[in-house]
């Protein structure tokens, strides 16, 4: 079975390296095809492993030693257990589709080959992240996906905004990574190893305070990758990247790495429920916070990005409250319908010649039915309507919140569900129905190539049916993960489900109703609350104003004032003092003979005076 593991892991690397050979060349179709094939191979291998793990249990291999110094020794080790295999399957599945999709999407891009090289490299890093059997290995993937997202967000580097967003994403993640590193160091110095099995076996013996610290540090890392408040701003800006990238990295896989980390460290977090609850609360907050921003935004991709944020919030609620398998489940379903949503948006963008403002679209249903249907499916799934995938996972999360007696969280999520339904259908309505605004720009939108549509169909199907695997999934992952049972009597449960469905549907209905009638009045946009939302609570502005500007100013001050004017000047001053004193001493050499003689006599006289005045005992 190991060979499948290595195939699954290294096929993407091979693809990336192979394609990289042609990176500098103009577009070559076969690069895209080869890449897609290799990723497909990796996917098949992952599925085989899935079955294998299901039958024979986890698989653990150690490839070779990496770092060893003092008591520290870190191998390249990989583990394929219930959790990682689910992640692998999800990742490779979405990746394959995205690769195929990109062949169509990047059709006219001159850096076609480079794109696929990066994309495959990302898949490789992601595989390392999920498959590694120790924290540092995870950190490798962690940084690797960061690098790839930097490369891919800034793929169109000639755009200032793109390269800026890329740097922002990288740096924000670095901030979080520092937290994560601290967590790793603490783990090492406490337990002397980075191996999951060793760590989780012994962590329970540690002093709770230390476990708490570890938990917090690790979660800081997770916050960066999963763009949780306050490190969330990069995700929206990351939409500068090509849409397949947004679909793969910023919706389906990378951003969920944080959730994966928390799930992976389940044994650790179960020991510190208070931290877990904090995580859940933050998640709930983000769920609302992001949804609210999605309400008013007019940028096609940003809306979806915010909804991703909000869904990540949901996952963290589940993970925080200890319902790891539910979090993982939502992670998976979300990957399907969210990537679908993004890829559909990609089609729309192409049709609209990269126009992103949904206010300028409308009535596209006529010209691109398939996309419209797929996106609607995705939106329904997102809104969590029975029997679509979103319903099962999301509803479970609300139940968990209720079950934990965290009614406040439950309420937040409940509201969030409503908002989600509203904004996703606001988007659908504005894009596909209503007035044909695009006519004004004289565009003639057209449907994407067929194979692109076909590539999307599997996702569409999964978005519909994935929910029904719930029990199989539950049974499978809880072999590893702590099981979580919900004990709510059926009456209450039914009411809850009804309520959730109700608010979701009413959200949808409201959206349809309003936008059929030409949307909200303009006057609304003058309102303060609207302004706050449309400016993302002025947080990016605040960062710019209170962090970046002062930092730049301070750096400049250090350089000009401290380094040059003080430190360096002091050094030169010392030298100059000697030189100047030389100039002074030089006057002694007047060259006049009388002066010379006087100096000699003076010397004698002074010494004599000394002899008289100062005479230490013999």
């Amino acid at each position, binding site marked *: 079975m190991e060979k499948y593991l290595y195939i699954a892991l290294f096929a993407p690397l091979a693809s990336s390296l192979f394609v990289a050979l042609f990176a500098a060349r103009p577009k070559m179709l076969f690069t895209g095809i080869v890449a897609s094939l290799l990723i497909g191979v990796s996917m098949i291998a992952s599925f085989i492993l899935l079955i294998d793990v299901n039958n024979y249990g986890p698989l653990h291999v150690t490839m070779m030693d990496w770092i060893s110094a003092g008591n520290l020794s870190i191998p390249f080790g990989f583990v394929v257990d219930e959790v990682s295999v689910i992640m692998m399957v999800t990742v490779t599945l979405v990746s394959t589709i995205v690769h195929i999709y990109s062949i169509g999407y990047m059709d006219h891009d001159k850096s076609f080959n480079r794109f696929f090289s990066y994309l495959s490299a990302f898949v490789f890093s992601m595989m390392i992240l999920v498959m590694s059997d120790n924290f540092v290995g995870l950190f490798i993937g962690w940084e690797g996906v960061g690098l790839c997202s930097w490369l891919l967000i800034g793929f169109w580097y000639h755009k200032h905004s793109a390269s800026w967003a890329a740097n922002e994403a990288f740096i924000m993640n670095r901030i979080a990574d520092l937290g994560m590193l601290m967590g790793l160091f603490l783990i090492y110095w406490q337990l002397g190893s980075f191996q999951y099995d060793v760590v989780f076996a012994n962590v329970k013996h540690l002093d709770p305070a230390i476990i708490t610290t570890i938990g917090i540090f690790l979660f800081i890392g997770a916050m960066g990758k999963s763009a949780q408040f306050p490190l969330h701003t990069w995700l929206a800006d990351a939409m500068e990247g090509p849409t397949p990238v947004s679909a793969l990295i910023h919706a389906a896989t990378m951003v969920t790495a944080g959730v994966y980390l928390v799930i992976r460290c389940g044994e650790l977090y179960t020991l510190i429920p208070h931290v877990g609850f904090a995580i859940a609360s933050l998640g709930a907050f983000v769920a609302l916070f992001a949804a609210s921003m999605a309400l008013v935004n007019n940028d096609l991709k940003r809306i979806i990005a915010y909804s991703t944020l909000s869904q990540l919030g949901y996952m963290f609620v589940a993970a925080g409250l200890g319902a790891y398998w539910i979090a993982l489940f939502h992670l998976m379903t979300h990957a399907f319908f969210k990537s679908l949503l993004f890829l559909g948006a990609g089609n729309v963008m192409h049709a609209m010649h990269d126009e992103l403002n949904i206010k300028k679209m409308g009535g596209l249903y006529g010209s691109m039915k398939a996309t419209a249907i797929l996106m609607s499916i995705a939106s329904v799934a997102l809104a969590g309507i029975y029997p679509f995938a979103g319903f099962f996972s999301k509803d479970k999360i609300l139940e968990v919140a209720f079950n934990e007696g965290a009614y406040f969280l439950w309420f937040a999520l409940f509201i969030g569900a409503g908002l989600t339904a509203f904004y996703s259908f606001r988007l659908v309505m504005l894009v596909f129905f209503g007035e044909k605004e695009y006519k004004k720009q004289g565009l003639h939108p057209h449907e994407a190539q067929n194979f692109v549509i076909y590539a999307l169909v599997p996702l569409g199907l999964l978005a519909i049916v994935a929910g029904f695997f719930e029990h199989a999934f539950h049974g499978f992952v809880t072999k590893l993960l702590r099981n979580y049972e919900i004990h709510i009597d059926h009456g209450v449960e039914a009411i809850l489900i009804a309520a959730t469905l109700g608010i979701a549907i009413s959200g949808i209905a409201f959206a349809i109703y309003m936008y059929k009638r030409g949307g909200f009045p303009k006057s609304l946009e003058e309102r303060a609350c609207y302004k706050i939302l449309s400016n993302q609570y002025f947080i990016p502005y605040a960062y710019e104003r209170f962090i970046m500007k002062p930092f730049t100013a301070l750096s400049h001050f250090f350089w000009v004032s401290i380094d040059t004017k003080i430190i360096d000047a002091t050094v030169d001053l010392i030298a100059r003092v000697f030189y100047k004193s030389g100039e002074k001493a*030089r006057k002694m*050499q*007047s*060259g*006049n*003979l*009388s002066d010379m*003689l*006087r100096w000699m*006599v003076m010397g004698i006289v002074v010494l004599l005076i000394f002899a008289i005045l100062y005479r230490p005992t013999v």
Partner: protein
Amino acid sequence: MITLTHYLVLAGLLFAIGLVGVMKRTNLLMLFFSTEILLNAVNIGFVAVSKYYGDLSGQLFAFFIIAVAASEVAVGLGLLILWYKRNGTVDLNSLQIMKG
């Protein structure tokens, strides 16, 4: 009665005079005279002390000093004449080519 002290005081006074001359004089010739005075002041001292101790080496020293003084004068005057021939003055303020 003239004791050793008187001689030594005299020697001291002469030496002081010599020093002052060395410092003050700007005429090279006078300057050399002053240095001669220094040496002779010492001579007096030596002779007196040597008499006082009844030991010859002092007088020996005095003789040598006289001899050396003589040769010094010879060399000094030689240099002086050289200088005078070149730029017609024996004022030591003319020796100012080199300084700094």
